Every structure is written in structure tokens, then in C-alpha cells.
């Protein structure tokens, strides 16, 4: 069913125009495909993470429900969706007016360039659309065979652990990955990386290699006889660990593999939110103001742009911080405000008027977009001066007044706070430490406590889901209200031992 259709006519002409500017500015992007669709379709796509075909799950239905309501009540509107694929697909809302479409197109070229060039995306499978569709087909088939409820319950459990990823896995080449899992493949490297069949094939082979193992019974017996080899070092790739070691059926292992693949596909986007949006916004702003904008459209553009950049007192807007930092970097490198001479200059007057006219700004931001992620971006380029100009502050909960209050405007504190929130893409650091804890084949996870407690209720529920996969007692070592504690769930009761 075709809910979106390729652009034509005026829009196609506009695309060619904007693409021309993008090339002129030196953006380097995948072939770009724009399609238009109505708001319902945009909501569907957004609910499915941008992809037209996903596995069946109520969560997508829930997101769709919320998005549709938001649109109906006029609370929110999605102008555009862009997916990190090659060719790069982007969806335009049919109801956008002309200026919107211009902004969106320019914005999309920014994203496209970022997807193609940023290092964190280098290992991404660009044929993800097919992979996702394949996952959908497979999971639907499992549902037919094992029952919708059984499969859905299992998916729920796996999704519960979806955020326990190791960002380093992104840089493992498929060679290493393959060696570490199973070794009976002799497909060529290149094919594995680039061909969409390879994903399906890989997963098929994974299934096959599992099924070639001795039958379940024997395997279990073996398990009890020889306890699992201890982990040489803890792993944060919890899903990967479960896929390899949890006593699950092969279809369940395959589902873990599918969902893990998808989670790792989305990971680079979570790692580069500020940069990605900043970069795209920088380019829509640049292309619009310097090339594409008709003088009659200025007010409208300014209005829309301001809406996107709005940053309220409670919300950190990655678009705003991203674009401002990009501009700041460009300015600093244009005027030579970097390096030893500038940093060591103590004369404030000189410093304020510093301009070596090196004009390396553009070059610098292209370099930045290639090699950084949000953490290194903030760490390296956020300056006290910038925080001051942008009036940034940190806030925290005051238990006495029961409200959020401004904490400080101190640069170091702001930077620490930001870095902390970005660490491990904002998720708690949790690793598998032992698959044979207490020599009883219990699972031990450890939360590396960085100053913020876990949400207790959620942690309990998650442990229950983990138990559903591991099928032996599971443990989580963490700190709660300043005390070391191990949560233990044995299928019936939750216990906490200090």
C-alpha cells in the first residue's frame, strides 16, 4: 500500500534547487529521496521510528495513539522525518506550506550529510529499511507458529533491556562480531557489510548454528555439569550476552538478535542528537538565509526557525544548543580564537578584539561533524563565554519546597551536568558481571553508580522481565540511597540485601 508518494512538479524543482545549494556549500550526502504523505502517515512513520515496516508490537500502536491525539488537538506537529539509509529517505508532510518545505528540505540535507560522514555512523547498515521489514516478517512468522501472546510477552521482556548497550560494539567490525558469535560462515566481508541479504542471512545462520547444537535436553544437562565459564571481563552488551548465553529457544534467541540489531542501529542517533540537530539546523539556516529564501518569505522563515530553536527554562533543546555551538566554533576558528596564543593571552581587551582573519571556521565545523559525538562535542567546545551568552543554568529538585529550582550558573557545573546526562546516551551504566553467580547459574548485573539512583519500581519490573529470559534468579548490584545493595529476584520474591 502506498501511503507516501515521490515528490513531483514544483517540489521536485525545489529539491533540485536546494540540492544545488547543498553541493555548492560542500555537503556530501547519500542520494536523497523525498516523499510526501499526509499527517496520518507521518504519525505512523514516526511511531515506527521512521520505518514503513516494523515487527508487530503494541508499543508502536501506543505511540501512534499519542501522536495522533497530539496532532488532532494541535499540540504537536511533525514537519518531517528523515531516515539514516542509503539512499536517504525523507518524508514531507503534504500540508506543509511552501516555506516549511524549503526549510525541511534544507534541514534534511544537513542530516543526510551527517549520517554519511559522522564516524559514529560508519558501521551502520544503510539498508535498514529492508532489515526492519525482514525482522517484521520473521517475527510475524514466529507469532503464527508460537502464538501472538507468547511472542509478544517475550518481545516485551527484551524491550525492557533494550537500553543496555555497549557503544563500543558500534566499532567492532563485523569480522570480530562474527568470530565472537559463531564461526561457520564464509561469506565475504564486503557482502556482509553492504548487502541487505546478509543481515537476513546472518540471522539465518545464527539460527542454524544454534539449532545445530545438540538438542535442548543434552544442552541443559551439559549446562548443569559444567558451569558456565566465568566472564573474563564484564560486558555492557547485555542483549548480546543474553543472546549467546540465556537458555532460550532458538526463535527467542533470534528475536533478541533482531531487537538488538535495531537497538544498535538507533544508537548512533542517540549519541549525536545535539550535533546532528545542530548541524542540520545550521545548514537549513545557512542555505535559507544565504540562498533559497525569497524576500517575501523572511518573516515566515524567521517565525518557524524561532519556533524550532525555542528553549524554555526547563527544557534543554538540542537544536538550539547544537546550532549555537556550531556557530560559535565557526566564529572562533574564523577569527583565530583558539590555540596557545589566544588561550594564554591575558589582556582582555586584546582578547575581545582578537581576529587573525584565518577564516578556518567552515573547515573546522566540517571536521567536527566528522569525528565527534555529543559528549566530546560538549567537552571540547562548550566554553564559559558560551554558557554566559546563552544564559544556561542547571536546576535541581529542592525537596524542601518540592519544586525544581535553579541551582547554579557556574560553567564547570553546567558542563558536568551536561556531560553526565550524555554519558552512555543518558542511560545508566549496567554490565553483566557473572553468569554463574554464587556458582548457581544466577545472573549478576552491576550498575556502575555515578551519583544518581535508579528508579526503584522500574528496576524491579525490569528484573522480573530479565528473569523471564534468564529463567534463573537474577541479581542487580547498585547503590540506593547511599547504600550498596543487591536486588535479587528468584521468580517469586524481590529481595534486597545490603
Amino acid at each position, binding site marked *: 500500500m502506498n501511503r507516501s508518494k515521490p515528490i513531483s512538479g514544483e517540489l521536485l524543482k525545489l529539491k533540485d534547487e536546494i540540492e544545488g545549494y547543498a553541493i555548492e556549500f560542500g555537503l556530501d550526502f547519500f542520494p536523497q529521496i523525498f516523499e510526501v504523505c499526509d499527517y496520518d502517515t507521518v504519525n505512523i512513520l514516526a511511531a515506527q521510528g521512521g520505518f514503513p515496516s516494523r515487527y508487530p508490537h503494541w*508499543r508502536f*500502536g501506543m505511540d501512534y495513539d499519542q501522536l495522533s491525539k497530539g496532532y488532532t488537538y494541535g499540540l504537536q506537529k511533525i*514537519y518531517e522525518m528523515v531516515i539514516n539509509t542509503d539512499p536517504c529517505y525523507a518524508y514531507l508532510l503534504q500540508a506543509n506550506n511552501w516555506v516549511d518545505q524549503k526549510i525541511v528540505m534544507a534541514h534534511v540535507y544537513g542530516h543526510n550529510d551527517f549520517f554519511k560522514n559522522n564516524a559514529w555512523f560508519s558501521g551502520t547498515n544503510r539498508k535498514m529499511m529492508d532489515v526492519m521489514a525482514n525482522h517484521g516478517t520473521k517475527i510475524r512468522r514466529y507469532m503464527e507458529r508460537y502464538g501472538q501472546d507468547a511472542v509478544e510477552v517475550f518481545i516485551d521482556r527484551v524491550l525492557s533491556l533494550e537500553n*543496555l548497550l555497549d557503544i563500543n560494539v558500534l566499532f567492532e567490525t563485523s569480522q570480530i562480531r562474527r568470530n565472537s558469535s559463531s564461526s561457520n560462515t564464509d561469506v565475504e566481508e564486503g557482502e556482509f557489510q553492504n548487502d541487505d541479504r546478509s543481515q537476513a542471512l546472518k540471522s539465518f545462520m545464527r539460527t542454524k548454528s544454534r539449532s545445530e547444537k545438540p538438542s535442548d535436553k543434552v544442552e541443559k544437562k551439559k549446562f548443569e555439569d559444567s558451569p558456565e565459564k566465568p566472564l573474563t571481563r564484564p560486558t555492557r552488551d547485555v542483549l548480546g550476552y543474553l543472546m549467546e548465553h540465556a537458555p532460550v529457544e532458538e526463535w527467542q534467541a533470534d528475536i533478541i538478535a533482531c531487537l538488538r540489531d535495531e537497538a544498535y542501529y538507533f544508537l548512533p542517533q542517540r549519541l549525536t542528537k545535539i550535533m546532528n540537530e545542530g548541524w542540520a539546523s545550521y545548514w537549513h539556516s545557512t542555505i535559507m538565509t544565504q540562498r533559497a529564501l525569497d524576500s517575501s518569505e523572511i518573516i515566515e522563515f524567521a517565525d518557524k526557525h524561532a519556533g524550532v530553536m525555542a528553549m*524554555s527554562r*526547563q527544557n534543554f533543546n538540542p537544536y538550539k544548543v547544537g546550532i549555537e555551538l556550531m556557530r560559535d566554533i565557526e566564529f572562533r576558528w574564523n577569527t583565530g580564537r583558539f590555540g596557545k596564543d589566544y588561550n594564554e593571552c591575558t589582556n582582555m581587551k586584546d582578547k575581545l578584539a582578537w581576529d587573525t582573519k584565518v577564516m578556518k571556521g567552515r573547515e573546522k565545523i566540517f571536521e567536527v561533524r566528522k569525528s565527534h559525538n555529543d559528549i566530546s562535542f560538549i567537552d571540547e567546545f562548550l566554553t564559559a563565554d558560551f554558557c554566559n551568552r546563552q544564559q544556561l*543554568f542547571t536546576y535541581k529538585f529542592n525537596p524542601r519546597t518540592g519544586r525544581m529550582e535553579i541551582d547554579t550558573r557556574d560553567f564547570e557545573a553546567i558542563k558536568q551536568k551536561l556531560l553526565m546526562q550524555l554519558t552512555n546516551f543518558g542511560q545508566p551504566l549496567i554490565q553483566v558481571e557473572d553468569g554463574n553467580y554464587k556458582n548457581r547459574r544466577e545472573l549478576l548485573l552491576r550498575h556502575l553508580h555515578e551519583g544518581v539512583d535508579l*528508579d526503584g519500581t522500574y528496576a524491579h519490573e525490569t528484573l522480573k*522481565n530479565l528473569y523471564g529470559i534468564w529463567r534463573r534468579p537474577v541479581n542487580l548490584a547498585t547503590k540506593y540511597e547511599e547504600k550498596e545493595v543487591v536486588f535479587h529476584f528468584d521468580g517469586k520474591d524481590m529481595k534486597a540485601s545490603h
Partner: protein
Amino acid sequence: MDHPIKRDHSRFRKIIKGKIRDNLRKYVSQGQQIIPKGTDKFTVPMPSIDIPRFKFGDKSQGGTGQGQGQPGDPVQGQPDPNGEPGQGEAGEGEGNKELDVELSLDELARILGEELALPNIEPKGKKSLKSTKDKYTNIGTTGPDSLRHLRRTYKQALKRQIAMDSYNPENPTVVPIRRDFRYKSWQTKTENQNAAVVIYMMDVSGSMGDEQKEIVRTESFWINLWLKSQYKDIEIRYIIHDATAKEVDEQTFFRTRESGGTLISSAFSLCKEIIEADYPPTEWNIYPFHFSDGDNWSADDTKLCLDLLDNFILPASNQFCYGQVESRYGSGQFYKDLVARYGQDHENLVLSKIKNKEGILDSIKEFLGKGK
């Protein structure tokens, strides 16, 4: 065909409804959680439908913002992790979702019906009052093109071609001709008009406290919901009484508190007047409900009440319901009197004792369980 997400969506709705059903007792006993929205929609707050994850506790975290202000100044509102203005990339937002789920009257009533295993009501409606309704459930051989039923048309064409042996499975071309065309067509259905009236009577004398009234209010909400789902037209009337009775609107009904004594017969006779004036029992399904704490002023008055019930109210109504809300001051005598007179299993008189908020659901089942 619809997009597959509609299936995800209906799956989601099913899960929610299941959750509401599982927690119905809680929703009912905590009262006021389900908020009517317009005439036939309800909003139900749904915590924790979200997939649990290891995540940071909210409060201790804080965040970063932009704007003016001194340290110590409040940041208005709470940070909203999903609140990204303007464009946004999906698949990344993750946060607390306190869902407000919308349900239609029918859906909510069905949940109530399923949970309590309520039988559908057999209306005693007047058969002479009929209304007709056209429904497109039929297939015809003539009709306007706009109503052409493509699938049936092609099916017909396929049948014909197979019968005529002009169908080639190698080259499965199906070409409908004029007489294969099928059209959607309507059937006229006659429905018996059935109308119902619910008459709530409540004792507002001094011994009925706020908690008792809250119970009555919650109970009447669910009873109304069920009856509304069963009848096309429904009217609701309210009577309050202490020593005298008067008809009031809904607001007043739940707010009024008098201090006088209690003469239940005053309410019953007003109820009789209302029925006589507006609702001929042959055409209306009548549901009088009476709530009190069981205190009546005198045995004489109780006798008067029983007479009214026997001679008029019981014969006129589908079912008379008496709900006795336990209160510290009430003696509960009226319940005993009614039991003494009619026993526990009367044909169209239902008695129920409501101990506290937890008892509401059971009491609703007692009232509506007979399917009358």
C-alpha cells in the same frame, strides 16, 4: 487494507482495556478517576503501561535550562523529557508516560459488563413504538456505481468464468461484465423503541455523611453507565428527602445535606407522582433506586413505604433497588424491614448493603446482575 499499525493500535487498546478490567475494582473504589469527557467519552488515567527499563530516578536528576533568574528561583513546571519543540526525530524519546486513555461509553460499559458478568437487559419496551434504521448489510444486483462492491463483483465474475470454462489459471484474468456487478445495499431494520428512566432517591438527613454520599455518587455513575449502554434513550431524575422530599438536579443531589428526620415514604410518594406524571409504565422501563443508611423515623412510616412499594412502585418498575450505605449513625432497620417483607430473592426488588468503597462493585453486580 489498513496499515498494519492499526493492528498494533487495536492490540494496544486491547491491552489497555484488559488493564482497566484488571484494575476495575481500584478505579471504582477510588471514585472520580474516570472523568467524563463530553457526553459519551471518558478519560481514564493509566499509569505504567510503559515498558520497564533500568533508568534513573527522576527527582534526583535535575537538568539544564536556559533563561534568566537567580539560583533558587523556581523553574516552572517539571522537565518533560519528551517535550521537544518543532521537528524531532522519532525513536529516541523515552520518558515517563502518564497516559490518558480515551474510552467510549460502550467500551467502558462493556468492560464493566465483562468484569461483573452482567447480563444484557431485556427491555420490557412497548412493542408498538418502533423506529427504523437503514443498515448497509446486503448485496444487491442493482445500484449506483458509487456503491459497487468490488470484491463481490470480481468473485461473481470469477464464478461465471469458471462455470463457462473461460477462466485460465495460467493467465488468471478476471473481467467482470455487466451482470456480474454487485452493489452494497441496505436492509431496513426495525428496532423497538425502548426508553428508560432512572429515579434516584437519597436520604440526605443528618446521618448520611460525605463518605456515604461519595459512595452513592460513584455507584450511580456506574449504574448510569451501564443503563446508558443498554437503552437508547435514558432519563435520570433525582429526589432528595429527609422528612419531606423534593426533586432536584444532579448537582444539588450530591451536595445537599439536611439535618431533619427521615420519612422515606415522602420520597416514595414523590417518585410515584413523577412516574404517574411523566412515565407511563407501559412505555417506559423504570428504575427507581433508593439509597439511605437504613434509618426511618417510625414503624408507621415504614408501613406506608411498603404499601407504596406493593401497590404502585413495584408493579410499575422493572426493578426497584434499595442500597443501604453503612454509616456510624444508621441502624440499618429499613433493610431488615424490607427483607422481612420481601425476602432476599424477590422478583423485582433488589436489596444491597454497601459497607464501604470496596463494596461498590459487588453492590453494582447485585443491582444489575438480574438483567432486568
